[in-house]
């Protein structure tokens, strides 16, 4: 199909297939592609609003048996530098978040071999008993890990966590949802089918989730697109994904130091194609954490409609050599300067009134 025909299809709100997406990524002019993605964004969100959430990442532990090659954050169980936060320490971080107007915490950690599922259940109960905060936590690989460790089905793990206070699940650990790539960069993490299975099970149980994609390591462009189509099909089945968050791999201090750092224009092309392909996912986040505030602004014209979060604390990307920091005021200014109205939101993208 010609580019022109693909453009009309997209502008008419029709779904594009894999080959058409590949043609767009490879052949569309840079500005045309941005414009096309922006039109899709405007069709979904006609108001010039850009949302973000005030939250904090809390990494309860960096001890992990996964040993993913792209990760600069983890410690092996007996290695120096490993830690597990106490519930009280976690509580203090939550209080600090609430004190600056935060509404949510994003919690993720390593695959710790010695922490039973009850530790996580108690953590959730402790938080819910003491703080009024949305808990956006864990990831499918963690859920699969606990299911294997405890010898119980994934369904039960999710049920127990949900009951203990889990509100939603972030889309981490998706990396590239193609097993050939996963077995190379994250051999000990759950395969693509299981990742999607956990999310769909969570959706069945009434939990919303996001989906991420980490690209720019060992995968091909085609495999990135396979990832997008896997998410689109999964969303067709359940409708539980609130947002898609693509971001680029940061190679410093990892076991894949030779990967070429993707350029900002490659990121923007992939972001635009994501917005166009994922016609059933409402929101697309820009990644200021990996791309910096300047490119994050430009990304608002390449399909992004959400600025992610304030991330009062972020440890994982920082360990890989990138440390951008943004306050709420700065996010507001960046969004306004780009020509949009900044609005605080909750995890499910309900807009919150200013306070």
């Amino acid at each position, binding site marked *: 199909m*010609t*580019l*022109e025909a693909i*453009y009309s299809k997209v502008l008419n709100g029709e779904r594009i297939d894999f080959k058409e997406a590949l043609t767009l990524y490879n052949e*569309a*002019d*840079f*500005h*045309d592609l*941005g*414009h*096309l993605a*922006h039109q899709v964004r405007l069709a979904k969100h006609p108001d010039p609003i850009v949302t973000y959430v005030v939250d904090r990442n809390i990494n309860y532990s960096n001890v992990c048996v996964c040993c993913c090659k792209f990760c600069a954050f983890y410690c092996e169980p007996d290695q120096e530098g490993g830690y597990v936060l106490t519930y009280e320490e976690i509580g203090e971080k939550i209080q600090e978040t609430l004190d600056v107007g935060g509404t949510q915490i994003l919690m993720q950690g390593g695959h710790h071999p010695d922490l039973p599922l009850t530790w996580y259940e108690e953590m959730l109960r402790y938080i819910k008993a003491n703080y009024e905060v949305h808990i956006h936590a864990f990831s499918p690989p963690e859920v699969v890990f606990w299911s294997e460790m405890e010898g119980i089905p994934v369904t039960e793990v999710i049920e127990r966590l949900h009951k203990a206070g889990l509100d939603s699940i972030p889309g981490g650990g998706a990396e590239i949802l193609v097993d050939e790539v996963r077995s190379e960069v994250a051999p000990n993490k759950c395969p693509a089918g299981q990742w999607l299975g956990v999310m769909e099970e969570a959706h069945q149980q009434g939990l919303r989730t996001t989906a991420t994609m980490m690209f720019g390591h060992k995968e091909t462009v085609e495999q990135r697109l396979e990832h997008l189509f896997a998410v689109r099909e999964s969303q067709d089945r359940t409708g539980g994904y609130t947002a898609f968050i693509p971001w680029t791999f940061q190679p410093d201090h990892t076991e894949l130091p030779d990967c*070429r750092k*993707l*350029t*900002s*224009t*490659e990121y*923007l092309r992939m972001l635009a194609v994501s917005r166009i392909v994922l016609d059933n996912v409402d929101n697309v986040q820009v990644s200021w954490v990996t*791309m*910096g*505030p*300047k*490119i*994050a*602004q*430009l990304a608002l*014209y390449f399909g992004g409609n959400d600025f992610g979060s304030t991330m009062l604390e972020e440890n994982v990307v920082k360990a890989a050599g990138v440390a951008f920091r943004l306050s709420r005021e700065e996010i507001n*200014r*960046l969004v306004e*300067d*780009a*020509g949009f109205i900044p609005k605080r939101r909750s995890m499910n993208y309900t807009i919150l009134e200013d306070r």
Partner: protein
Amino acid sequence: MKLLKGDYYDNMGIGDIRTKVLDGERLSFEDGVRLFDCPEPLAVGALAHQVRTRMHGDKAFYVINQHVNYTNVCVNGCVFCAYQREEGQEGGFVLSVDDAIAKIDSAALTPREVHIVGGCHPKLRLSYFEELMSAVKTKLPNVVLKCFTAVEIAHFAKLEETTSKDVLTRLNKAGLDMLPGGGAEIFEPKVREQICPRKSTAEEWLTIHEEAHSLGMKTNATMLFGHIESREDRIDHLIRLRESQNRGGGYTCFIPLPFLTENSQLDIEKPLTGLEELRTIAISRLMLDNIPHIKAYWVMLGVKQAQAALKFGADDFDGTVVEEKIGHEAGATSEQGMTRVELEEMIKGCGCTPVERDGFFNEV
């Protein structure tokens, strides 16, 4: 097949400007103002990209170069500068000619362009700079020596009690090939009075560049933006440069420099954001119809923004640099230098063809 056609630019309110650009017609001051007011920065970027592509295709230039800063001692004390020291102040330094040569020797790649600038030192005499020029040329006979901003040239002339043209002639004889574009800041007099009252005036800066052109030398030109100047001041700056180029024709490359707020004494209420930088770069390309190249200077923009700038009118990625001090003291967080492989891969990653150049922008 282009998706962005006439109707898109019409909707953005710049359809007539697009027509002028496509017809090769010169843009007016008012056109510049309207480009700043255009609601979508992408429209301005796409138009600048068309011009850049018409001039250079998908080429993006880079140079194996090296920066040497011979001193940070400066009599000017510009309020935006984080690099300057007073004479005798702690941290002040002056390189000897041997030190400078040793720095050039230590570079991993033999530079094709050596960029030497420094503060306006109250005591360094012209003979030192002549010696420096001929020492570099003895070491590297084929290098392009791009040294001394117009502000330094004016300072040397004052110290030697001679004319700037005489200084240029003597340095040219000693080996100087080209002037870098620094010290232009913003030409508008009221802004200049506030940010760099002791520096050469706009007229002096432009005169020295035109004198260099009349001696057959090439020069670059910069604009430091995002401090206290208005968008109109930026357009004014671009138009003054365009007129100067009409008189001499010796400007090779224009370098828009975003002001970095971190370590400066200037308190900026609303620092620049990324899209305003890109828009300014794009408008520079559109206004400066008679200057061949626009630089995406990664040291000041940051690498990712410089990559995006290649789609907003810029065609030059500068080079390996090796050791940069002035921007980094102002708060630049970019690397100190880059390798040839890094530069080439980055340029290819932006969908452009990397072309190695010398200081004059001849392909090598």
